[in-house]
């Protein structure tokens, strides 16, 4: 069941996430709620979809049990701010951030980690 109302396509299950990161070289997933720290990240991803055609952009509901795979990821240890944003390269976590990020912070990571 979709829980988010964002312009970014929502991943609903852990197995779907697994499939996506294995079938695509570059994937960014913003795992959050519909709150003030998360919405700006979804909006930025919507705008970047046209500019970064080699990256797949997705959202995932933080409160879904299926999102445990992100909530409990070792890369997210110590994270205490929504959203948890994951950057995957060839199926592996290339980078992860906690809390709101602006467009420049996101594009810097995309340019460095998901070339």
């Amino acid at each position: 069941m979709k829980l988010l109302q964002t312009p970014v396509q929502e991943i609903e299950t852990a197995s779907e996430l697994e499939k996506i990161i294995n079938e695509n070289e570059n994937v960014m997933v913003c795992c959050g709620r519909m709150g003030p720290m998360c919405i700006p990240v979804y909006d930025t991803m919507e705008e970047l979809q046209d500019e970064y055609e080699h990256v797949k952009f997705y959202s995932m509901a933080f409160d879904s049990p299926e999102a445990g795979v992100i909530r409990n990821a070792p890369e997210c240890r110590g994270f205490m701010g929504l959203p948890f944003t994951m950057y995957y390269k060839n199926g592996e976590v290339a980078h992860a951030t906690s809390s709101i990020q602006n467009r420049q912070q996101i594009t810097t990571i995309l340019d460095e980690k998901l070339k």
Partner: protein
Amino acid sequence: MEKYDLMIIGAGAAGLTAGIYASRAKLNTVIINEGVVGGQMVLTEEVANYPGVETTKGYMLANTMKTQAKSFGCKIRSNVKITSYALEDPVKSVTLEDGRSFSADAVILTPGGRPRSLNIPGEDQFKGTGISYCATCDGDFFTGKEVIVVGGGNSALEEAVALTNFATKVTIVHQFDHFQAFEHAIKEAQNNPKIEFIMESELREFIGDTTLEKVTIEHLPTGNMSEMNIDGVFIFVGYLPNTESLAGLVALNERNEIIVDPDMKTPIPGMFAAGDCIAKKYRQVTTAVADGTIAALSASEFLRTRNTKAAPKPASLSVQG
């Protein structure tokens, strides 16, 4: 160069409202927005005091305003970086980082404001790993932990009370010996057994390894520094107007707010300003919407009379004195 009748800089409540009014009045209008559409509205979890709407999420209100503006033909260029402004001449123009440029015969400045940060060492490093600016978003990460709330206004005291639902102890650190909040908010915080107060003090540094572990606090009257172990810090120390890049282009007061007259006009012909960026006392979604309406109507009138004035008047009709 894209040419418009009216250019609006900023897509928060004031800018979107100005866009709705101007485009509905058939002015060819563009909103150029450096941040996220909706501005600080999207930073508001719940809006319960917007008349005509019982209760809504901030982002829903922002989204509806955006849809409304677009439905009347308003163009929105969002998440861009403006690199230069030329706003003093009769034709106003801005250039973006990607080389695109826009011009218009009138401009409304609605850049809004942003939460003020403390600007002390460690603040960027621990954002999201101990430092937060949103209790509603991140409060549950601090269940059973101890947190500090920095600030002494309504937001700080109300969020401190909200955080007692999660944290075992909330310490409010405030720079003055009194609070600026409403009396009821002060009373509620003072009566809460989980809340303690450190007055006349400021944070000086955030310290930790991968997550925040402790802070340094200065007691201002004595200059004494002390360290305090802490799991999280929530910062609510007011707002700053987003007017840095407009300095020199428009008159700002000592708080860097744009000075306008009651019709939202600046001293420069064809330049208006509205919303949280202007010098005023109360900042609400409703006041931003009102300012944006007035600015759009003033800009419409300016463009109309300017076009009329373009034709020279007979000398006999000129009024002396």
